[in-house]
């Protein structure tokens, strides 16, 4: 009878608890969804060209990844975490309190964040100030006062812009892209007001609230973490704009176009040279104690930092990574080779 046969099977499956785990046999990577395409590309090549097992890469977001990374030092915790921002001091402390004391930091390149719209509409050229005024919850109302954002159309923000409704889709606050957009574009535009810049010194908290809060009246729409979805929505709604990573613009150049920001178009060259204002650095972090203990970590590091991966013509550029300059690559590579400790 069924029940008589399934009982021993269940017992067997429970007995598997006693089986040792595979800790240390393969590299475990967690972290940012922005770095995910790059880390997985390297992991796949690494698995194919060496005899090591292909590393497992999870997409948990930068913050989530660092949390898992810092949770413990044993070999079955993640060995590497990716981040689309630099590790914070608080996270370093958290790590240290869990015995993860020595961390290797590796910068891998840059990523641009674009404000894009459908190719059916003309491209727009905005300044960071325009972006801030269009998307902030509260905007300056003169004499150092603020008011809830009254702007409904782009030409109310800046007469040079078209008279279309402000409608921008972007990632939710859990996303590293959102963090970077807020920090670089919103705050960048916010600072253009001299009195707000002065406010930073007097009341840092009020400054942050003013510059970092996105409007919630429907002009800015949180469209989820899936950048592809935003691209598809832009195709359908030609007046809307979307905020996403450069690699999605690169892959969908037939459907969407990036707006010029402060007069600079989001192109590979301009982001790489640092002219495009909304770009950020991408990193990953390695537990130094695991190097040599987990099979293949040093070889993986060598693969990631090789010219054929992160170089100007490396395979990561095909995936949309914007490489660092030759000098910067050289300096980071030597840091990796010497396993230099993270210094904040």
């Amino acid at each position, binding site marked *: 009878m069924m029940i008589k046969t*399934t009982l021993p099977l269940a017992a067997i499956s429970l007995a598997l608890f006693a089986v040792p785990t595979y800790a240390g046999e393969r590299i475990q990577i967690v972290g940012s969804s922005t770095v995910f395409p790059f880390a997985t590309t390297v992991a796949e090549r690494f698995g194919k060209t060496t005899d090591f097992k292909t590393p497992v*890469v999870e997409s948990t977001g930068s913050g989530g990844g660092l949390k898992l990374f810092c949770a413990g030092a044993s070999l079955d915790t993640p060995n590497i975490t990716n981040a689309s921002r630099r590790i914070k001091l608080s996270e370093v402390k958290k790590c240290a309190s869990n015995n993860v004391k020595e961390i290797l930091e590796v910068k891998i390149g840059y990523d641009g964040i674009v404000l894009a719209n459908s190719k059916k509409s003309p491209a727009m050229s905005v300044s960071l100030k325009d972006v801030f005024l269009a998307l902030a919850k509260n905007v300056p109302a003169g004499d150092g006062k603020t008011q809830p954002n009254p702007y409904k159309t782009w030409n109310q923000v800046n007469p040079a812009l078209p008279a279309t409704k402000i409608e921008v889709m972007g990632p939710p606050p859990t996303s590293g892209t959102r963090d970077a957009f807020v920090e670089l574009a919103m705050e960048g535009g916010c600072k253009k007001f001299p009195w707000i810049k002065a406010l930073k010194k007097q009341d840092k908290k009020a400054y942050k609230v003013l510059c970092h809060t996105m409007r919630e009246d429907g002009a800015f729409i949180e469209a989820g973490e899936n950048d592809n979805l935003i691209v598809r929505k832009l195709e359908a709604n030609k007046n809307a704009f979307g905020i996403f990573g450069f690699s999605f613009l690169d892959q969908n150049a037939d459907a969407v176009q990036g707006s010029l920001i402060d007069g600079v178009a989001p192109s590979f060259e301009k982001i790489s040279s640092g002219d495009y204002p909304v770009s950020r650095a991408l990193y990953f972090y390695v537990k130094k104690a695991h190097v040599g203990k987990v099979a293949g970590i040093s070889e993986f590091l060598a693969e990631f930092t090789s010219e054929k991966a992160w170089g100007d013509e490396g395979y990561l550029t095909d995936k949309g990574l914007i490489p660092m300059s030759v000098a910067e690559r050289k300096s980071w590579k030597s840091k990796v080779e010497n396993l230099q400790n993270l210094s904040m």
Partner: protein
Amino acid sequence: MTDDFTIIPTPHTRRRHKSELRFQWYGKAAIIAALGFLVLMIGSIGYKGVGVIYQTKIELDIQLNADAFDPAQLRKADFSGLVKTALRARFPDVKNRRQKRRLYGLVSSDAGFELRKMVEGNPNLIGSTIKIQLTASDDIDTFIKGKIDKNLPESDRRVKDVEINWIEKLQADNSVVQVFNTAFFTSGDSREPELAGILSALVGSFFTLLVCFLLSFPIGVLAAIYLEEFAPKNRWSDLIEININNLAAVPSIVFGLLGLTIFLNTFGLPRSSPLVGGMVLALMTIPTIIIASRASLRAVPPSIREAALSIGATRVQTTFHHVAPLALPGMLTGSIVGMAQALGETAPLIMIGMVAFIVDVPASILEPATALPVQIFLWADSPERAFVERTSAAIIVLLGFLVVMNLGAILLRKKFEQRF
């Protein structure tokens, strides 16, 4: 003859008949709308995903000079270099660096490995010139399948004029072929859409469901039998019943969090493994199985129990020899429906690390694995355009499995169900 019995409809009855007719039409309209949505969904997924059946290959003549190989270490030879040489030989007028890069991009980055496999399989080929079909890159494949519009301005296309020119030349020589895409069914995930397959996700889903079934079926069925046949009916059993019903409605992400804290952090079970995934899904499935099993036990008429008891069977004998076998088809149906639900679940797997990029096909329930719906989620999130096709194809595979499982449940019920 009189017409005494003819009913002459009064305005009132006419209104009642009309309202009945109207109601039937509403019902039909609702069914048509539901079917319409289904057809629309399956149609659009099928339309997008059907292209996966074929993969574009580019046929090249490759010269395998003996001096490029070290017989002791075949692996070390520069296979992708050989592919590049062959491409250059095919289009000798390509000179500048940028164009060469484009030319090499016609074939997948995996072309070197494909050549390696062929040579390793038959080292006697060294020294001759061979014809080999190499996988085309994702952009070329998408172009050949007609999903990139040639008439767009060049800057808006992933495939440029030079590439189209090369492709047309290759096509003129019949060197561009479309073959059945075995890689999609026999390989694991990949960052390159043309190489990505669903096997690792499929095996992962299988292991996960196996663990889930082995845990949830015995536990669920035993709990149901005890509650239905043995437990006294009092306030405590009512409380348990309410809790089980509530448990069935708990959002699945909560079970994922539970799995993270208990199975991973407390028990230290391996992250990303089908074992933990199956355990978490079992937690989710057990209430469904208990509820379905209790319902089918209740459907067994009391006369069966009374007959068994009256000739001296114990309650355990009554239950396991007479009642449970009759209720088994219903229990199995409930379990299969529960498993089908578990098969489509992603949320709880996020927390325990099964939402991951996994290339190697898992060999046991302890190795890192992913599941079908997770694979769909990951591909839908990838920037490369060619993944749209893969995403839809993976959805078709998942739907196929769901249909098979539900069909199985119906057949089981039809075959073994007894009406009293």
